[in-house]
């Protein structure tokens, strides 16, 4: 039993729903109790889809348990076929139905439906949402795709995008255009937008572009073996990764067509003098493995940040994240325990968090700015505008997204200089944000102090002397945590028991950069 407040991933059948909902002409018959239909709203509300997910829930109730839930399943399956006339059906069980062991796959097989019926085994008490999506898509490809003659022109499949994916809609468009520029045709994009008939012809492509290992890696490996299709290993998030991705695609396809990189503004934006204030900002990165690996590279090499910690919630990517952490001189945090992530962030006191919707909660509580880089995300992370994470435009979008929560360069200086201004103080937040609230007219100094975020309790045995403590409070909140931490570690390095005003400034000189 595991005590959970918030979860990073849903159950595996929600992953299967993401595949089914992304596809067309496929129907999912899910053996599930009343109430599991809540998952529809993920798609209709959070992603604002204008259609119901193609899912039929058997909706069994307590009174059915004693009698015949199996025939309930068969009726639901037949009704779904009659009403929706899908090209193929996937069948499976949610967590409760798994316990009653009706074997939806076996039941559906005996029905003699004139279309492919694909049974899913998704162990709800062991695995999670990403596994569910990855496994479901793999099973669909394994059942429907057959070896075929390759297309005459060089072509590839795009693998991995699903419904409810973080920016999948726009990533697919960006990468499709990039491949087109390279003279490569996209044979099938799947699961998103593909029909079962499309899946059947995936074998025609020369190679596969794997955009999201979380949801497509098993299928990509299967195609490599079954259809002799190599797949791309670089995920094109960030300017450097996009260049590497282009190089990899050139190797796989033989394309030599030049690429116009004028649209990549991120490199200059990052080099322009206005961005110097970004230098060495300490960031904590957390999310799914793929996005975290990409974000760490962008943060260090393209933004000039200092990566203070990284981690991921999906164990499937733990090895890669641990390896990268080691390269960065860090230890990776691999956990799906929200409270553990919160504790880590609290201890590290980064100047910024690059995380998920969950870390946005943590950032809000601790007063640390946060930009979202990975699922799980909320309704505001499904924007109306074109907003990819991948390719050159993705790099531009990421630059804008990451600096938005920060207090901007000159404003940061002014806050350092005049931090007791009653209107423009650091407790009011960055002035370009809607939530910017000037304090009441000429407040008492104490009331200003009381509006500040709670300070973390001094750590360890080192004691802060009153003058040093007061000086520390003159430092704006977005660097105060770092100053406290640096000073304390300097003091313990020097074997000091107390931190005086001098210690504070000696530490400042010591860590000057």
């Amino acid at each position: 039993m595991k005590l959970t407040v918030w979860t990073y991933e849903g159950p595996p059948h929600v992953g299967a729903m993401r595949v089914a909902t992304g596809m067309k002409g496929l129907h999912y018959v899910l053996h599930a109790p009343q109430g599991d239909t809540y998952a529809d709203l993920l798609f209709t509300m959070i992603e604002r889809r204008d259609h119901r997910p193609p899912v039929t829930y058997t909706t069994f109730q307590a009174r059915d348990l004693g009698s015949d839930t199996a025939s309930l399943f068969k009726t639901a399956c037949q009704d779904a076929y009659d009403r929706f006339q899908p090209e193929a059906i996937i069948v499976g069980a949610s967590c409760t139905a798994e316990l009653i062991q009706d074997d939806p796959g076996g039941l559906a097989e005996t029905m003699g439906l004139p279309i492919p019926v694909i049974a899913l085994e998704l162990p709800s008490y062991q695995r999670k949402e990403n596994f569910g999506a990855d496994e479901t898509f793999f099973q669909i490809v394994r059942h429907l795709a057959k070896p075929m003659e390759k297309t005459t022109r060089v072509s590839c499949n795009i693998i991995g995008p699903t419904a409810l994916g973080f920016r999948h809609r726009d990533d697919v468009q960006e990468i499709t255009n990039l491949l087109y520029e390279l003279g490569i045709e996209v044979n099938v994009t799947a699961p998103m937008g593909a029909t079962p008939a499309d899946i059947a012809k995936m074998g025609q492509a020369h190679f596969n572009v794997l955009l999201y290992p979380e949801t497509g890696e098993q299928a990509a490996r299967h195609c490599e073996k079954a259809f002799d299709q190599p797949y791309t290993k670089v995920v094109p998030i960030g300017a450097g990764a996009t260049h590497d991705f282009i190089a990899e695609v050139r190797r796989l396809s033989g394309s030599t067509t030049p690429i116009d990189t004028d649209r990549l503004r991120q490199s200059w934006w990052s080099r322009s003098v206005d961005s110097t204030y970004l230098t060495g900002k300490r960031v904590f990165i957390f999310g799914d493995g793929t996005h975290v690996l990409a974000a760490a590279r962008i943060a260090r090499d393209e933004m000039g940040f200092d990566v203070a910690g990284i981690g991921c919630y999906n164990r499937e990517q733990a090895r890669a994240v641990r390896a990268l952490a080691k390269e960065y001189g860090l230890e990776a945090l691999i956990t799906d325990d929200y409270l553990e992530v919160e504790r880590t962030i609290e201890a590290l006191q980064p100047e910024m968090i690059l995380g998920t919707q969950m870390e946005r909660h943590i950032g809000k509580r601790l007063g640390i700015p946060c930009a979202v880089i990975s699922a799980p995300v909320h309704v505001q992370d499904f924007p109306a505008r074109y907003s990819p994470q991948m390719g050159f435009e993705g790099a531009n979008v990421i630059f804008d997204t990451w600096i938005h929560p920060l207090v901007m360069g000159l404003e940061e200086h002014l806050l350092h200089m005049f931090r007791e201004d009653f209107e423009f103080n650091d407790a009011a937040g960055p002035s370009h944000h809607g939530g910017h609230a000037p304090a009441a007219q000429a407040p008492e100094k104490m009331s200003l102090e009381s509006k500040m975020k709670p300070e973390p309790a001094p750590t360890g045995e080192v004691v802060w002397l009153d003058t040093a403590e007061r000086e520390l409070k003159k430092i704006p909140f977005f660097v105060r945590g770092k100053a406290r931490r640096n000073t304390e570690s300097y003091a313990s390095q020097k074997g000091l028991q107390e931190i005086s005003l001098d210690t504070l400034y000696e530490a400042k000189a010591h860590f000057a950069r």
Partner: protein
Amino acid sequence: MTDQFAPPPALGCRTSPVLKQRGQREVFCGLTGIIWLHRKIQDAFFLVVGSRTCAHLLQSAAGVMIFAEPRFGTAILEESDLAGLNDAHAELDRTVQQLLARRPDIRQLFLVGSCPSEVIKLDLSRAAERLTQQFAPSVRVLEYSGSGIETTFTQGEDACLAAMVPVLPHTTARELLVVGALPDVVEDQMLSLLDGLGIGPVRVLPARSIDAEMGIGENTVFALTQPFLSDTHAALERRGARHLAAPFPFGEEGTTAWLAAIAAEFNVSDDRFRAVTEAPRRRARAAIAQASAPLNGKSVFFFPDSQMEVPLARFLTRECAMTAIEVGMPYIHDSIHGPDLDLLPQGPQLSEGQDVDMQLDRCRAARPDLTVCGLGLANPLEAEGLSTKWAIELVFTPVHFYEQAGDLASLFARPLRRKTILNGTSHTQVAAQ
């Protein structure tokens, strides 16, 4: 004291035939109630004993994720918990210990059963007894089921309140108990109206904290403020308390009828009743008249969701001049919904339970001006050109009693007003239209 009422219809819906279909139900399970109950009862923690699906439901249904540590959580069952029930009990004890150590401010802990915990027959009542003994007197541990195989959406609150009734102390005092979780501001308005009528002391279930709890006995009379409290109703009757049946306090008419039933029980004079209710009734009528203009003459179709459908249909037809086409309820109880059904003019199809695909067929054929439905259906129906009001907002918004009557009408009118604004000014039309 019923002057100025529109007369009840010659034929109400109480004896109308009810359409009952079985099929896919597009409803939440009872766990969803935790989202408002954990705010209402401030010293309580709700621990769902369930699966990852339960945890995912709670954070998804919360819609807006709550930017603080909520007073609810899920003990997620893992493979090892399914192997042996004794181990599962030991695991539960360990989890509760961990939780209570983290939250020493918690005075009441609800163990909330789920579909998986019921299917594996994990006996939470035994666990609650054991844990109560262990943590008494600082924490009281109760249990109820919020599972989808037992409960629909708002029935979760019903199950929670029903679980509290047996542990309330006994009293012989003649007291009024008002049952149902209301927003604090609405509860205060209600108490002030009852105080004006000279009725008191008034007890409220659920109380905001364990210290404010009340006694129950054969002299207790109780009124329900929510139409989904049938198990609580039965539990209170088992303790000897007597129900004051009345229409539910939505709108000016419903509120007046609800208060009138209580006033009659406590022998409040007509003059006093009029003196207390006249001004708020006038305000409510004026507010409804203003807010409901876009609703007049329009048709409404209810999918089953919150169990508030019949009283709301009564409000919309009698106070906002709408026509009801279909009124779907998860379930109908005559002793609770009868007074509202009496007032609902015959005409609409009543339905209980659901086959969502067949109900969608009926809805599309009827093309109502307004469809009241759950979150899973709202955007797809909007995309087909139907205006919708998502039902969950009715549970999350103050809508009871006089001062909210206008707001209640506005909630329904807003989708229609919005459509008029957007269609009037936009040069791009929705593709589906």
